[in-house]
């Protein structure tokens, strides 16, 4: 099966030493969890995980051209 392309966006201190936004390729059916761990994060660091602008569980399976956005626990108001 051909790999899928997923746009990954990082925010706040997740950007430090990494990137803001990049397209990565993964095997079809890859879960958010595997992508997060593959980037060197611990799952406990994750504040918000969004796929295409909606909150997604860690076992959510990504599809071609999905956008995965990762935020640490931050807030304001």
């Amino acid at each position, binding site marked *: 099966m051909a790999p899928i392309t997923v746009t990954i*966006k990082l*925010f*706040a*201190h997740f*950007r430090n030493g990494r990137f*803001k936004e990049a397209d990565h390729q993964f095997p079809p059916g890859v879960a958010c969890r595997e992508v997060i761990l593959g980037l060197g994060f611990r799952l406990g660091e994750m*504040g*918000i995980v*969004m796929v295409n*602008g*909606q*909150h997604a569980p860690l076992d959510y399976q990504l599809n071609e051209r999905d956008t995965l*956005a990762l*935020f*640490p*626990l*931050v*807030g*304001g*108001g």
Partner: protein
Amino acid sequence: MDKILRVNMTNLTTAVEEVPAEWAGLGGRALTSTIVAKEVPPACHALGPNNKLVFAPGLLSGTAASNSGRLSAGAKSPLTGGIKESNVGGTAAQMFARLGIKALIVEGMPKGEGWYALKVGKDGVTIEEERGLLGLGNFAVIEALQSLLGKKTGVIGIGPAGEMRLTAANISVKDPSGKIRSHGRGGLGAVMGSKRIKFIAIDDEGAPGIQLADPEAFKNASRIFTKALMDHPVSGQGLPTYGTNVLVNILHEAGGLPTRNFTHGQFDGHEQICGETMHDTIVARGGKPRHGCHAGCVIQCSQVYHDKDGQYLTSGFEYETIWGLGANCLITELDDIAQADSIMDDLGIDSIETAVAFGVAMEAGLLPWGDGKEVVRILREEIGKGTALGRVIGSGAGAVGRTYGVTRVPVVKNQAIPAYDPRSVKGIGITYCTSPMGADHTAGYTIATNILNVGGQVDPLKKDGQIELSRNLQIATAAIDSTGMCIFIAFPALDIPECLPALIDMINARFGAKLTGDDVTGLGKTVLKLERAFNLAAGLTSADDRLPEFFHSDPVAPHQAVWDFTNEEIDAFWNF
């Protein structure tokens, strides 16, 4: 012995009163709303002699409790026509508390055209005629008062916006750096202007200070409470590093960042105005990413923002202001927004109401979208000088919409809707509708649970659970607003089990009381219902607990979300 200071501006008399027994256990919002509800005729004109302006420090203000230095101001709002409480950091709450001032009540209205100043100290309050500082901006007033009365003097004042009684006018309070924090939303500055009081100077020399009923218990609870604030990733790390403006990118990603006067949920220029960019800019220019609005704040969400030449430009540069002029008005120059923020502080005008008013003005064609320089000019030359256009914009989003025939006017109870689109973050829409304050995100900040995964998770795009979420948060917020605590303590309080009990233990140790969690929830419910009852008596109805029509009819991208709550569903909020 705590006391009530009462100032009658009709007769120009003052009095020091004992605290009535039924007010003894109240502070902050609970006290201002109780006094307004008891003493202000609900149907009075908010800018007339029958309205009263009440200031009250929180229950824990003046103690060593972290983040407890908030001052509440309350009155009938000239913007919403309902009750208003607005709280602020700065130095005044702690000075009032150390002076044993439970509340300062300003009533009546002078007959002539003269202006006055109040001087508050250990012996009470005096009224003096004021001439020299009239017409000046807040920064000049603070500077003048500091050289006249000493660096430590406390200042609560109004800028030109309050003197003109504009309904977006703030009451401004000096912060520990000699800059400004604002009693925002609802035009309390206009109420102070109607009483013809330019400023209140506070001298806490010789103040009796705070006597704790149980100092040891207080110390223990305070330690646990502070640890919870430091341990939570939002209050301990996120807010100090990026400030509230970290939300630009989060709301953009979630499709809840109101853009171009609430026509889109995402802003192409988000990276230019976001918290990450702001943080890097502040650091590169030698500013301060962390800064507290009052002594004893351990969260430090404020910051000091410098201009391109490394000179001070503004502080307390909040997400809502940056969203309002940024995404909502399509301005991408952070420096222009910072300059506007500083001018708004100086004029003493609400940066949410004014920014949303500019969005409506742009929709009306009064100025081009995205023109930050023209916004700065209008602030200085039109609002600052009180031209007809300036007064219309300075009277808020609703006034601009009515004057120029705009139908997309994001207000509830005539108060501008802030930085979270209620179609794509539905819980906050319930708060906008039902809060007795008018559209106010801080009244029940569902963003925590809808978006930030704090206090659980409620899907922002679905209706399920939003009424309960907003209700629980509004009750908790009404209670927290009465303690003198910053609302950001809610982040750890929602997630760390020791946090809220420690807060209650501190209140008990301060007063020798035996409050339980249920008592505190009960206080929140009582305050909300009291405020709601005032509004109904003032002539507001459940028809005022609604979002504007366009939120129902115009889907917002990217989720194509609409506001789909029925009137009955919204009204069920009050079933408690």
